[in-house]
């Protein structure tokens, strides 16, 4: 292995999808070669930074890069949004972590991405398609402005449904509406994969449960090392406890205790608010008035600490399922 990462991991491309959602493409040839759908990385912005798990949204073996899609919600992701530019480096990008998706011999699969969850579900859609499966894609956003990767996703799908909470694009309603339509139309769905905020994954699992359709969800608990060492990411699956970082992150959606997961995601809520406020204050002192990052959006109320591989900020109101937040 060469020493190109000694000073960190270089960002080679950035794309902003909205005020809050952005993409970083990172130079990491070994990771590009090793990554498989379903896996995640842990990133660290700088030497005072925290370890943030993010699901790999794409990887390009020829370019030697991996792609992450990030939602600026709390202190760390907003700082990433502000400071990550092409040519800058992340202190650490470690992985690929977790067990890759087992594509099995699935012939017909529904892939559901909610908000930022569209990013991690994309490599799975592509892999199922390449594997010869019939792919039904369902993606949902709060509103039209937040939509990203619609064409990229659609290109891997045999059927495609887009939903929005406010009806500004596609079906008006939650992704569960799309799931119900797909189930009505197809009696032979082998598997449904849902990635998004826990409340969305829970709703997706409840929608498929009466039909007995195998449902895979990718969990996003708070974690530190991501290598099975801290146990912070423990989740209740059926009667047992699993570590999402090494046993998952994908689990049987019908077995997951989502209420327990959602409670545990609240662990550092107060601290996150404090970190964000302090950071905003520091920025205000450092920057000219008009670049105040706090003006970019509401203060994060949701957990971002070590957050979710998928939805760095889906609790802060940028994505809603029309259900009460949290537990």
């Amino acid at each position: 292995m060469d020493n190109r990462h000694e000073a960190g991991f270089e960002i080679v491309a950035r794309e902003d999808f909205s005020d809050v959602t952005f993409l970083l493409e990172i130079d990491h040839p070994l990771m590009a070669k090793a990554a498989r759908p379903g896996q995640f990385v842990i990133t660290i912005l700088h030497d005072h930074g925290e370890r943030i798990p993010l699901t790999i949204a794409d990887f390009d073996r020829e370019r030697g890069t991996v792609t992450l899609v990030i939602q600026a919600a709390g202190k760390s992701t907003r700082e990433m949004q502000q400071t990550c530019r092409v040519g800058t480096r992340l202190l650490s990008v470690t992985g690929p972590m977790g067990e890759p998706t087992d594509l099995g011999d699935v012939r017909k699969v529904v892939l559901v991405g909610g908000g930022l969850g569209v990013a991690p579900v994309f490599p799975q859609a592509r892999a199922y398609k390449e594997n010869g499966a019939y792919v039904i894609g369902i993606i949902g956003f709060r509103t039209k402005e937040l939509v990203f990767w619609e064409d990229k996703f659609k290109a891997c799908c045999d059927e495609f449904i887009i939903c929005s909470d406010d009806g500004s694009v596609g079906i008006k309603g939650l992704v569960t509406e799309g799931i119900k339509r797909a189930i009505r139309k197809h009696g032979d769905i082998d598997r449904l994969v849902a990635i998004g905020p826990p409340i969305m994954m829970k709703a997706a699992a409840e929608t498929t449960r009466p039909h007995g359709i195998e449902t895979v969800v990718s969990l996003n608990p708070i974690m530190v090392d991501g290598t099975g060492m801290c146990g912070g990411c423990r989740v209740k699956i059926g009667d047992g406890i699993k570590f999402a970082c090494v046993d998952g992150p994908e689990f049987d959606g019908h077995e997951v205790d989502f209420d327990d997961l959602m409670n545990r995601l609240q662990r550092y809520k107060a601290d996150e608010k404090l970190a964000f406020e302090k950071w905003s204050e520091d920025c205000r002192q450092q920057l000219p008035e008009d670049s105040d990052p706090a003006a970019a959006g509401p203060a994060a109320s949701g957990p971002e600490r070590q957050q979710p591989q998928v939805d760095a900020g889906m609790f802060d109101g940028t994505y809603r399922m029309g259900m009460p937040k949290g537990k």
Partner: protein
Amino acid sequence: MAKKTIRTIPQDRTLMPVQDPAERARNFAEVALGYELDAALNESERCLLCPEANCVPACPVAIDIPGFIEKISKRDFRGAYDVVADANLLPAICGRVCPQEDQCEGVCPVGDTLEPVAIGRLERWIGDMAIAEGWANLPYTEPNGFKVGVVGSGPAGMACAADMAKAGCDVTIYEALHRPGGVLRYGIPDFRLPNEVIDAEYANLTRLGVKIECSTLVGRLFTIEQMIDEMGYDAVFIGTGAGSPQFMGIPGENLIGVLSANEFLTRCNLMHAGEFPNYDTPLHLGGRVAIIGAGNTAMDAMRVALRLGADKVHCVYRRTRAESPARVEEIDHAEEEGIEFHWLTAPVEILDDGEGNARGMRCLAMELGEPDASGRPRPVPIEGSEFEFEADTIIYAIGTNANPILGQTSDLKLNEWGYIEADDTLATSMAGVFAGGDIVTGAATVILAMGAGRKAARSMKAYLGIRDSETVYRPAQSGSDGKIFGIDAEERNFTRIRAA
């Protein structure tokens, strides 16, 4: 000089100054301050310099203990360091964290009548001096063309890496975290082992030519098989540690406020959660902290919690102090700092405050029964002894399981508990791949892991056909450079064998 006897040596073990308990319980500065020169000289006089010393075989890395102590007493400090560094690249670390009372000091004959020689304190003193003076024991090595990969930068990996580098191999260590050191970094807190000491002793590794690649998760980024088949490694050592924390499986363990000692210590030691929000990683410590378990990790967790401002820290252990696996000094220090110990107490449930947070535990009082498989008396619950124990942060320090990643990603043979199977030479089921430390034995100590790393290095050298030698390079003390063709004639261990 007349032969020393038990009657002629200084009778009292030389005390090591420590920070005042009330003061230190609120800071992260080192607790034990180490010997000064006079203290070290005095203590070195207490060694009887036994010709067939018990302490040497009792040391997992077989340091020539009387040899280095004799050099201290003769004020040849550099010579003393060279003797230690022969066997142990990390004297400043091991002097601090080894359980000497169970090893070298436990078999010291002085201890039959008096307190044993404070071998650990002397080792630390000489290690600290080497750091202060910038000494490094760098042998002359001739590259032999072999490429060795080491997985994990903890004590096992570093000991193996050092020996292989000294033998002339091109060594690369891969570390999954973003900083090297393994358990020394994420596990052992600063007041017991300052980060600067780790950095200084690790710098010796890089001076030996060892490369350390952090943020590299072996198994997932590339596999052990790929290291051998595609990346050109002639041999691989696995020292990944045990690492996966155990919970008890009692109700309420997923409540907010319940965490493993690994998570707690990693947040604090590696990620600086104690300095939140200047560092981004939060901790959210409660006022009333209970630590379950009484090993070294438990002691570390308790004392970190205290230093981070917990009002009260409790230790809950189902056996008694006598059965506690912690170093005696750590229990003493914890007690002095005001940790409250609840021996013979076992939690049976974590209690919910109604909002998903832990508010305490339901516990049972225990009594000691017949010895169990570990040889220690089995704790038996006393019927009807249930009581509630209030705590808002509950930390599990009851041991670890094998980390599953290498098992998931390679064909290495594992035992029934998921640890890597290795034979007496520490060879695994895969040719050229060796393993040692906690990932083979289950959780043990830093020094045992280092011992395993060195043992694996010996086997690895045999496997590669590299001549092994008991002696290492000693820099000429005379000041004259007696080298011929750049090779010191006195030096007996430079490597002549090259890869075919």
